């Protein structure tokens, strides 16, 4: 049951596409896997695509926020892509502001944004 989220490497970026509903264990495992992979590959950027995700609760939001801060500590920038309208609305109503988080509409835009950031 505890499937791991695959993390792909493309040039100096890691790409994560979250394809199914996150349970707590999978979310925490993902946090650990991503940081390990950042360390192993010295990647400088991460794109996390949430297109198929249809809700985010406070726990998952905290894990995502932590992943972003932790990646920052390790010198990598994170872009979140594909947040559905319903997810954006419920996150705000929950009172969660993913402030200072880079976002983009989709994976392609996210990668472009990340490249620009890394070149800057």
């Amino acid at each position: 049951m505890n499937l791991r989220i695959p993390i792909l490497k493309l040039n100096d970026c890691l790409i994560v596409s979250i394809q199914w509903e996150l349970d707590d264990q999978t979310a925490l495992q993902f946090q650990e896997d991503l940081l390990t992979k950042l360390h192993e590959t010295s990647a400088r950027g991460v794109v996390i695509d949430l297109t198929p995700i249809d809700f985010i609760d406070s726990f998952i939001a905290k894990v995502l926020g932590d992943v972003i801060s932790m990646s920052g500590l390790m010198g990598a920038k994170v872009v979140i892509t594909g947040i559905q309208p319903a997810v954006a609305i419920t996150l705000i109503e929950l009172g969660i502001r993913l402030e200072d988080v880079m976002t983009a509409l989709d994976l392609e835009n996210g990668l472009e944004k990340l490249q620009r950031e890394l070149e800057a």
Partner: protein
Amino acid sequence: MSYRSSVEILTEWDIVAARQLGRNEAKEVGFGTVDQARITTAISELARNIYLYAGKGKIEIERISEGGKYGITIIASDEGPGIPDVRKVMEDGFSTSGGLGAGMPGVKRLMDTFKIDTVVGEGTVIKATKWIR
């Protein structure tokens, strides 16, 4: 007539089961995608609170109707420690577990009505309703 379904919350996996039940019910009752997400999120928060703070309990989903309106009530009940200061836990950012403290005030905003009955040492019952607009 009202129709009720329920999930016992004993393990972390039951949180997933409860929100899946909630989403299916919300869909069947006729809620749109945004309301489905609101209801799913609210259930997830209440179920996780049961798991974290009471150890075990129950999430019930009731289909309701009144004067041609249709909706869903989530009933989250446990026989855990209860909540000593309800006003505090309804504040954004209050958490005794290092969480975001977004759960309870969040559920109140996501749903149309929110009612909490809690007795220290006896447990907590939270009822939250959403109507189709």
